[in-house]
Structure formats: structure tokens, C-alpha cells
């Protein structure tokens, strides 16, 4: 994850409390999703950014996961994500995200 984005995630977690934060991802496929999810939960796996070694354990979802889709206004979801649902491999994304959440999320 971009270093500046990591810095912002860290600062906002401190400002609002990690338990009040939800991170939403828009990555194009499973592996990139799980990498970003790992970064905001267990720390930056590439050892490059401010989240290296920081286990924030933030609640994190991909916006196209069913848990999130369920809560979003259907018309808005269709307009913003409808087409990409046809393009992206949502099952792959879900399969990559679930184990990261199960292992590292502290506030679920």
C-alpha cells in the first residue's frame, strides 16, 4: 500500500480509535485485496511503510463483498459498482479477504 495512505490510516486510527474505523477496499483482484487488508490489520507485509510491524487489527472489507453490498443503497451500488461486479472475480476477492479478517481483525 502507498506509503502516504499507510500514514493516513495510522493517524486516523489514533485520532478516532481503531475500534471506530472501517477500511473499505476497491482492489481489482483477490491478491491485491488481501495484501491491503493485511497491511491495515497485521502490518505492512512489504516492510516499507509506516504500518510495518503495526498490528492495527482494523475492520476491513472489499466494497464488493456481500456484507457491504447488503448495507449499501442498491441503486447507489448498482451505479457505482454494478459493472465491475461483472468484470472482477468477486469470489476470488471474498476468498482472499475472509481468512485475513478471521485472523487479524480485532473489532468484529
Amino acid at each position, binding site marked *: *500500500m502507498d506509503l502516504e495512505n499507510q500514514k*493516513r490510516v495510522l493517524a486516523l486510527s489514533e485520532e478516532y480509535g481503531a475500534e471506530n*474505523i472501517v477500511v*473499505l477496499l476497491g482492489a481489482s483482484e483477490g491478491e*491485491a485485496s488481501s495484501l491491503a487488508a493485511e497491511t491495515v490489520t497485521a502490518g505492512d507485509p512489504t516492510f516499507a511503510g509506516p504500518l510495518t510491524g503495526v498490528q492495527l487489527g482494523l475492520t476491513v472489507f472489499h466494497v464488493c463483498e456481500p456484507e457491504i453490498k447488503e448495507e449499501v443503497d442498491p441503486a447507489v451500488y448498482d451505479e457505482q459498482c454494478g459493472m465491475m461486479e461483472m468484470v472482477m472475480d468477486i469470489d476470488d476477492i471474498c476468498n482472499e479477504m475472509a481468512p485475513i479478517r478471521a485472523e487479524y481483525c480485532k473489532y468484529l
Partner: protein
Amino acid sequence: MAILAGKKVIIIGDRDGIPGPAIEECAKSAGAEVVFSSTECFV
């Protein structure tokens, strides 16, 4: 319990997936407050 309603949301969108501003619209419609939104680019 809802995941998004009443929460502070940080958005890490993707230029080739769902971009930040598109996720913002979704999050707001679910009653979340967006505190940061960004879009990454791998290419």
C-alpha cells in the same frame, strides 16, 4: 449489527477496480462517515 452505519470509513480505492470516489458514494449511502478516501494505481 451494521458494519458501516455510524462508523468512520477509510477508503483505499483502485484505479483498475473500484475507485475511491465510487466507494465513497456507497459508504455514505450506508450511513458511514468518510474520513479519508484515496485511489491507488499499480500501472
